[in-house]
């Protein structure tokens, strides 16, 4: 009887140890962050998808703002000459892959329909064009807010991706 209880205790301990260790192992397996002294955000491209100008601009402006909020102290805009002299510069190219305009009116009247969604392919490269990271990030507005709120949602998610994968000198 005593032996059975002991065995059960050992099993329970081992099980607990395995579960407790798994997040630690996962953290160890996580790839190291790529060093980025500064980020340069290129204008959002939408060659394949017809995107209204205000969405394109709102995506770009929100993206820059969210990156600055997420600890990137040096975020350069498209075409900024000062970025040319920065070492360890990472360039963010964004291309719209999907867009559903939705309708604020439909959202407010029905709650369940009229969602606006945008899918953007984000490619982080070095200045010479070598790809460092590629991700598809989407932005949505389902219930409250204007259609442009989807661009804010995208920007927050894209900034989170950047923050997870790149380290700036101040945030190491």
């Amino acid at each position, binding site marked *: 009887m005593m032996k059975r209880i002991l065995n059960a205790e050992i099993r329970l301990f081992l099980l607990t140890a395995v579960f407790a260790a798994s997040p630690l192992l996962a953290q160890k397996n996580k790839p190291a962050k790529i060093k980025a002294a500064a980020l340069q955000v290129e204008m959002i491209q939408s060659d394949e998808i017809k995107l209204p100008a205000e969405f*394109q*601009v709102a995506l770009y402006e929100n993206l820059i703002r969210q990156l600055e909020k997420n600890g990137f102290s040096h975020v350069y805009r498209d075409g900024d000459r000062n970025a040319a002299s920065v070492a360890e510069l990472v360039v963010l190219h964004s291309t719209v892959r999907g867009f559903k305009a939705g309708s604020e*009116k439909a959202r407010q009247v029905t709650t369940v329909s009229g969602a606006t969604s945008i899918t953007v392919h984000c490619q982080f490269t070095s200045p010479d064009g070598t790809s460092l990271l590629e991700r598809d990030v989407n932005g949505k507005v389902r219930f409250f807010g204007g259609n442009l709120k989807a661009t804010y949602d995208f920007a927050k998610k894209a900034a989170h991706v950047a923050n997870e994968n790149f380290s700036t000198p101040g945030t190491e």
Partner: protein
Amino acid sequence: MTFRGITVLVGLASLFAGLVIPVANAQQVSGPVKVVQLTGLASVKDNAKGTLQVENGQLHFVHGKASSDVSASSIQDVVTGADSQRAVGGTIGLMSMAAPYGGGRVLSLFRAKIDTLTVQYRDADGGLHGAIFTMPVGTSEVIKKELVAQGAHTTSDKEPAAASAASSSTPNKEQK
């Protein structure tokens, strides 16, 4: 003419004037236009209400005591669009969502048409900025024309009539 006849005549004249005057006002913009700056202007908060005017080669936005200028020659693209917003907005609009029997939802059906003006410009370092404004119907094309006349560039060189016709079929316009 009887008193009744005069009343009908005055009524018809007022109705006609009511239909024509807003259109005329929308087409002839002289002086500042009331706008909402949604985003993009440096040192101006999002959703700031103010006035917009094109003068001396500058796009001049005034918000309270502060003002912001963008040189027309630095503007790379000016695009106009059409959109709509809730007729009853703000805090009252938000509070109405809690009205019983879907009263708030009924209010959402009443929407006011607005114009959008999207401007892309470069700063002194060559950095690209974008600003979005909303304004009364018919005013964005006039501002765009003035900007182009004073040196701004645009990628969509359409006549106002053609532009307004096109805007009704573009994704800019909300799906009804």
